[in-house]
Structures are given as structure tokens and as C-alpha cells.
């Protein structure tokens, strides 16, 4: 299973979801497949889950989808007990675990290539609905209720190393432009101003 084919399957299922991506393949591939205003393409390590948690806590009636990587989750493991205890019922976390730091270009292994199991860590942190999937059909079965239902879901998708994202044309939309597009979308769909001030 490769990450891109998971994203290809997920993209048509995204409706008014808010989608936050971490870096590298998550940002490049999702940004290529989906140009939705509800995307927030963060592009940094160790931040997407917490930002997604903030969105979910502040807008409990909107489903928030976080697209993370193993390296990014490992950098901020303290997120897992926090998210578990806050327990937002509108948050779906997908960790595309390729077991390497792909950005290094030398495929340096992450801890999940060794003894570390992110599903067990998530469960130990208190996220009850945590699963690991290893093929596309199992991924679809786990992801469908996470995208269409409710609850706090944590899906670890074991994926092969893929360098496809290096061949994709990257969006040149920087984070400021992305922010304003995202915020205006929230204003439009929620019917309220986001940024305050005199103007």
C-alpha cells in the first residue's frame, strides 16, 4: 500500500471536513489531489495533530481530519495523552507510517522501523479507537467510518516508502495565503467573523 492511493480514495469523501496535513508527502500529495478551501497544509513536523485538535475543540460540529506521518507523530508524542483525555468526538487521525524519515533522502529509519508500535502507544495514551492497517482494502474499511461517522479515531496506515511526491508539482500557496483562504471558508460556512479588530 502506498500513501498516494490512500489519498486518491479519501479525496472524494471529503465534504465540509477540515483537513490538516503535516509535511513532505502528506502536504505535497494531498495538496495535489485536493484543492479544497478547508485544507490547511501546515508543512511542519510535530504540529498537525495539535492544530487539528484545536480546530476540533473549537468547532465540535465539524469533522477534522489530520494527515500525519510517523516521524511527525514521534516528534510530539505528548499530543497523544492530551488528545485522548480531551477526547474530541470529531477528530480522525491518519498516520501514514512509512517507517523512514523520507525527507532525509537516505531513508533513515524511524523508531517504528524498530520496536515501536504507534497503535499501542495511542491505546496506552487512552485513544481506544486505534488500529493499524497494512493493505488498501483494510484501510478503506477503517477509514470510511472515520471519515463519515463520529468519534476520535487513530488509524496507523503502514505504507511503503514512496518517492512519488518528489515528482509532483508543489503548490506555491504559502501559509499566509492558505490561512486566509481557510479562514474565509470558515467564515462563509460558519457565518461568523474569525479575525477581530477595527479594520
Amino acid at each position, binding site marked *: 500500500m502506498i500513501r498516494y492511493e490512500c489519498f486518491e480514495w479519501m479525496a472524494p469523501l471529503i465534504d465540509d471536513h477540515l483537513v490538516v496535513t503535516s509535511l513532505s508527502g502528506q502536504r505535497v500529495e494531498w495538496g495535489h489531489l485536493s484543492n479544497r478551501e478547508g485544507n490547511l497544509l501546515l508543512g*511542519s*513536523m510535530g*504540529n498537525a495533530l495539535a*492544530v487539528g485538535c484545536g480546530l476540533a475543540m*473549537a468547532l465540535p460540529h*465539524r469533522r477534522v481530519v489530520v494527515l500525519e506521518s510517523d516521524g511527525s507523530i514521534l516528534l*510530539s508524542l505528548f499530543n497523544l495523552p492530551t488528545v485522548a483525555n480531551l477526547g474530541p468526538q470529531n477528530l480522525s487521525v491518519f498516520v501514514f507510517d512509512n517507517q523512514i524519515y523520507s525527507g532525509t533522502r537516505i531513508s533513515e529509519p524511524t523508531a517504528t522501523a524498530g520496536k515501536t508500535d504507534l497503535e499501542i502507544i495511542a491505546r496506552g495514551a487512552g485513544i481506544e479507537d486505534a488500529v493499524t492497517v497494512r493493505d488498501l482494502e483494510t484501510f478503506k474499511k477503517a477509514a470510511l467510518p472515520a471519515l463519515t461517522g463520529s468519534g476520535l479515531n487513530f488509524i496507523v496506515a503502514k505504507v511503503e516508502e514512496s518517492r512519488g511526491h518528489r515528482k509532483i508539482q508543489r503548490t506555491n500557496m504559502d501559509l*499566509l495565503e492558505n490561512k486566509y483562504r481557510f479562514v474565509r471558508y470558515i467564515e462563509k460556512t460558519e457565518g461568523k467573523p474569525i479575525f477581530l479588530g477595527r479594520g
Partner: protein
Amino acid sequence: MEKDVAQKTAAALKGAGIDFVTYLPETRLSRILPLLEADSAFKLVPTSSEAEAVTIASGAALVGKQPAVYMEGTGLFVCSYNLLTVSIRVGTPILLLISYVGSMADQKNSFRFAPTGLRTEQQLRALNIEYQIAEDPAQVETQLQNATRMMHALKQPVALLFTGAFTL
């Protein structure tokens, strides 16, 4: 922090429009927490690290909350990466309520805190975060309103460093 100062600070936060508070508790300002918890105007979000306190607050800011992040001064160093890569780079209006441990006016200063206090303002300047020092509870309402106005004007994190009478 004395009880009346805590009450004044909590009331000033409410008056400034703050409605979402992420935090990792510490010793100097902790008496504000029960007051915030008891007031339904605030959504309180306990965290395990200041690193996620600022990113959770940044997410909330993007969908209409007026967040504050309450932390000890040491936490500023913990969350600097996250402030840089999310709050500052994206540009999210969040109010940092920082207990200024180890500062000259910290009434509980000791060898454990002074090395941190010595570098706290330098760290904020390095991050290009606007800040003010709050020492006098009589000024806290004005300072919180000013800081909140500034964070909305900049769409960036703004900090208040609490020391002096706030650290009694």
C-alpha cells in the same frame, strides 16, 4: 498570587474577550485556574506540554476562538519551535500569559529560576513577539485589553510577562 489578584486577572481576561485557554499549570499564577474553570465563558484545555498548548490555541484561533496560552516562563523555551513553525509562520492571534519566573521582580526568585528569567525577554525578542511586563494588578485590565487588541492587529502571538505582585 493572592486571591484578589487572581480574581482581578480572571475578570480582566473575560473582559478582554478571551474565551479559550490552553495551559500547563505552574506555581505563580495557578490561582486563576479554578476561577476560569468555574466560569462557562472560558473553554479550558489542559495540555501535557507548552509545545502543544500554543499549537492547539493556534488551531482554535483559526476558527473563531480568542485564545490565551498560560505557561511558566520555562515553557516559552519549550514551545519556541512550535511558535515559530505554526503561530508565527501562519500568523495566529494568541495571547501568551507567561509567569515571568526568575525575573528581577519575581518574589519567589531563586537560583533555580534566575537563569531562565535572564533570557526570557531575549527569547521573546528573538522570536519577534511583542510583549509587556505586568507587575501591578491595578493595571492588569488595561494591559490585557491592550495586548488583546495588539494580537488582533498583528494576527500574531503577543505576550504578557507576569511578575511583581502577581508572584506573591
